[in-house]
């Protein structure tokens, strides 16, 4: 099982022929991911390190049966690339690109979510998704992960690595690790991923990694209290961060949250989920919960 990606993943990479795209897609392929196509307009019909290149995603899907895409194009082209994948029938879209305008994402995410329940957009500005031992789509270093029962979802990219690393140190593997990205308008939020973990028989426990700002963590806690049977261990970066400029008044009126570390920690503790103080403690709490189970 795992969520989002697995053995059946057939990956098309938008921006495969760029240097970063080429490097990371190569690592994904080396990890065992079925890399079936790349898309670079104007380079259709060529071949990049053994992977066929197409002009459009539509053509790549038609010719190779790709069902998952990774977006590695520059920010100004990212919204277009995501929509191209969506309209071509791709079911899991992983957008690595950072600095995508928030309005672009509001339009794209709103469009996709209104139309399809069965399409997952992860990112942008995210490290991607890995189902250890099955498939890796993105930039999470595969060698730090190992298969196991913990689902991980994180707004922060490097904290995914750090916490996977901590878990691995204690011999605890992962079902799937999902970096949803820290952008104001992510394609998937904590709740989307939590609901998939809840439904995944391979996942026994979930680690949720948030950050200060916004109210995504508070909403996730409220949702999880009602809908999660599996335990969650939460961690939020930024407890000691200098208070940045406040969100606008209007934002606070809407969300009713100040987005502080304390607000998030209170929300999870009130929902009955433990909150770790640092990445190392996350792994320790997980180990404790597993030994009890």
């Amino acid at each position: 099982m795992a969520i989002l990606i697995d053995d059946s993943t057939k990956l098309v990479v938008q921006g495969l022929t760029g240097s970063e795209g080429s490097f990371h897609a190569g690592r994904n392929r080396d990890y065992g991911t079925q890399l079936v196509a790349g898309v670079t307009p104007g380079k259709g019909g060529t071949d990049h390190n053994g992977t066929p290149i197409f002009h459009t995603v539509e053509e790549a899907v038609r010719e190779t049966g790709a069902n998952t895409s990774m977006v590695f194009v520059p920010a100004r082209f990212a919204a277009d690339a995501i929509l191209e994948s969506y309209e071509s029938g791709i079911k899991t879209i992983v957008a690595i690109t950072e600095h995508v305008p928030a309005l672009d994402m509001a339009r794209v995410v709103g469009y996709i979510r209104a139309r399809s329940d069965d399409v997952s957009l992860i990112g942008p500005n995210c490290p991607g998704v890995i189902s250890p031992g099955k498939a890796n789509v993105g930039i999470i270093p595969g060698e730090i992960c190992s298969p196991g029962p913990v689902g991980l979802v994180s707004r922060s990219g490097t904290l995914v690595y750090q916490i996977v690393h901590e878990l691995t140190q204690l011999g605890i593997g992962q079902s799937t690790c999902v970096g949803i990205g820290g952008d104001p308008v992510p394609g998937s939020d904590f709740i989307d991923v939590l609901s998939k973990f809840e439904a995944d028989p391979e996942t026994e426990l979930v680690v949720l990694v948030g950050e200060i700002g916004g109210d995504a963590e508070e909403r996730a806690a409220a949702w999880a209290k009602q809908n999660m049977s599996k335990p969650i261990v939460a961690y939020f970066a930024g407890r000691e961060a200098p208070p940045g400029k406040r969100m606008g008044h209007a934002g606070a009126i809407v969300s009713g949250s100040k987005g502080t570390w304390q607000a998030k920690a209170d929300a999870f503790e009130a929902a009955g989920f433990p909150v770790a103080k640092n990445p190392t403690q996350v792994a320790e709490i997980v180990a404790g919960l597993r030994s009890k189970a």
Partner: protein
Amino acid sequence: MDLFEYQGKELLRKFEIPVPEGRVASTPEEASEATRFLGSRVVVKAQVAVGGRGKQGGVKLVSSPEEAHEAAAQIFDITFTDQEGRGAERSKRVLVERAGELKAEYYCSFILDRTSRKHLAIMSSEGGMDIEEVNRTNPDAIAKVTIDPLLGLSDFHARELVFGGNIDEEARKGALSILPKLYRALVELDASQIEINPLVLTGDGKVMALDAKVILDDSAAFRHPFYEELKAAHEVNEQERKAKEHGLNLIKLDGDVGIIGNGAGLVMSTLDVVKDAGGSAANFLDVGGGASAEVLSNSLQIITENPEVKSIFINIFGGITRCDLVAEGIIHALARLDVDVPIVVRLDGTNAEQGRKMLADAPHPMLKTADTMLGAAEKAVALAHGEGA
């Protein structure tokens, strides 16, 4: 990017949104001259990013060029802080605006709301005051309308705001005509917020924006070349300015442990663990994804230039970032800089072993390594406190 009031108003003017006539002045003399040009009664307003400038003496109503001169001089002397008393900021400019009679003050704002992924507009007849307080005490006085960016603002949204916000009948037409312009400005400027508080009904029956808090989405800079010009007016400290020149995201803090990390989350987490280890960070510095050797080298240089820094903690978990390039940058920086504070490096992730080997092969008296993030934090803090490690 949070714009100054005068910058926001200049942009709004391009969308034909009425704002008071005004001039920007950088000296008391200019303020006095502006007053002569605008007529007798003017308001002299500090241009700072922090809120609550009025309570701190940053807004003064005057009746002559001489008074304007004095008001501006006083304002230039104030150190403004935010509502929590932090963030000392001086006003480099004042906005001198013609003052007139007001019949009513309203509140009006648009934001891109991350929770609903839509635009959210708020309007209220209770303007000129803290809207969060109004929301707590009299929520019915506030109209909140969500707008799907795929459809944009329709006429009915504007009506729901104006009628739902209890805007006076005399101001309705003016407000109904301003709302679509504000929305167009929001979208076409890629603003994440436009807040008009107050939107006013003037003595002669006009509706105009008396203040403007505009926040732009930095990610959209590629399609708005004018962002760069606006940014130039925003003062940052010397270290932040240098970091920006190198494309680095640095925030100056008050502690003594210099921090370099990759990814905002990991850097924030690094601040947390340094604090837990009894230390205190001198800065927040995120080198971002895919940092090159050059970026690392520049980062080290900028941080070592801060005399407060007693030790440096480089915390890298490689994904896009390759640890071999990080090591290369560190080695390069140590070779060309006269580094006299200890540097604790912790590398994991992409090409970490290679990076660790490169550091081991290039020993330097100030270069220390650590195996874990917590261990590295403790070491860096101990070194900052002058304890050997």
